[in-house]
């Protein structure tokens, strides 16, 4: 489902003397449907960079990132928008929403974007919010004023609203209590069971061991010349 070959990345800092910083070289990774792969490596090793490249958020310098036949490294923005809408989900660490939009709608948005009827989208959103223990009295409020943990759970609910065939999870269990952590792990297991290919970053070792089938250390993708 996800196939990465010979991927490299460097940043050119034009306003800092044109410094070129190579951050990744020769990255390769393959994730089958129903498989969950954890990225590991020290802070700064490039886990998030790799995730962002897979999502099309960072441009690849060379190589390919194929997701269900679409090469993110070379397709047009329009194709990436479609891929993100239909195929590739991303649960980031931070919730980024238009202030004032009610939580229920924030969670339902991925389904509404796919043209699902409002009733159906809202019902699914409510189901997820209930599972993640967001009290019903908060559903009509914007999540921008919620606590960090609540925002993260809203973010997770949103990420799991549509059944994406491929998913990227950036620290999905960070800052969650035991009860909610278990809910998130069961959501991940459910996604695997329906055949989703998942790549995740988990600092929580217990969580990683429970849901991941393999571990890939991104330190192996660090360019040799990099200081």
């Amino acid at each position: 489902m996800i196939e990465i070959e010979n991927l490299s990345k460097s940043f050119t800092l034009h306003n800092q003397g044109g410094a070129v910083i190579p951050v990744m070289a020769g990255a390769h990774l393959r994730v089958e449907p129903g498989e969950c792969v954890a990225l590991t490596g020290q802070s700064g090793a490039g886990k998030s960079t790799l995730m962002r490249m897979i999502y099309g958020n960072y441009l690849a310098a060379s190589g390919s990132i194929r997701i269900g036949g679409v090469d993110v490294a070379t397709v047009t923005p329009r194709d990436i928008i479609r891929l993100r809408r239909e195929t590739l989900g991303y649960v980031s660490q931070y919730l980024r929403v238009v202030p004032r939009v009610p939580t229920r709608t924030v969670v339902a948005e991925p389904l509404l974007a796919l043209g699902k009827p409002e009733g159906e989208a809202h019902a699914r959103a409510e189901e997820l919010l209930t599972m993640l223990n967001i009290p019903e009295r908060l559903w009509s409020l914007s999540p921008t004023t919620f606590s960090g943990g609540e925002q993260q759970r809203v973010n997770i609910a949103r990420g799991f609203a549509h059944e994406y065939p491929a998913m990227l999870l950036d620290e999905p269990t960070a800052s969650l209590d035991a009860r909610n952590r278990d809910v998130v792990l069961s959501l991940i297991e459910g996604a695997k069971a329906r055949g989703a290919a998942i790549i995740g970053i988990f600092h929580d070792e217990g969580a990683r061991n429970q849901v991941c089938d393999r571990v890939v250390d991104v330190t192996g993708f660090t360019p040799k010349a990099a200081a």
Partner: protein
Amino acid sequence: MTMHDVSLDQPLFRVEGLTKRYGKRIGCADVSFDLWPGEVLGIVGESGSGKSTLLGCLAGHMQADEGKILYRGRNTLTMPEPERRVLSRTEWAFVHQNPRDGLRMGVSAGGNVGERLMAIGARNYGDIRETAADWLGRVEIAGERIDDRPRQFSGGMQQRLQIARNLVTSPRLVFMDEPTGGLDVSVQARLLDLLRGLVRDMGLSVIIVTHDLAVARLLADRLMVMKDGHVIEHGLTDQVLDDPQAAYTQLLVSSVLQV
């Protein structure tokens, strides 16, 4: 979602090599892009970068010197003026930064919206008033304000009224020039929320000029960055903002406190 008969596999709007000069100075030069149904394209850059000139040329408010603007395959630069005017009244809409430029200040709120319907042939007073009232509701203006003049409205309300006036005829393509400029942050958020919902529900294509990168991030699917009349970077919105390639875009993004 109403998509009319527009094919989703063809660009709604295609611009090729568009150039506008002011004497020897360049307004905008060699701009090319495609816009697809349901897509929001943001044009960002500092004042004087040529983004408003470009928008003006695209919308037909200014005459371009070179290039092509194809709307559903027809070149709007060579189309007879009456035909182009019909287009701007029906399938196109333009939301000005200053609501006073897009509203008739001496006409009631309901009249501002209804007038657009009459311009495309609506004649039944009851229907027109009902549609106008429905649209005021959609942009969150209380029904009891229907007979008030825009002068009595706050800036945010005037802007929402301008949007209602523009969208009541169900256009396909909307040009927006800094629609949230000059509004309080809380009012901006409300407007952004409203615009996003309308874009999604009506399947609108939008070209929005803004200098506010936060607005661009929340509203635009794709971004074009302009400097000195040229497009210097073009791509997926979050990619351009998070991994800018051009020196100028890097400077622009890093100059913002937080996007």
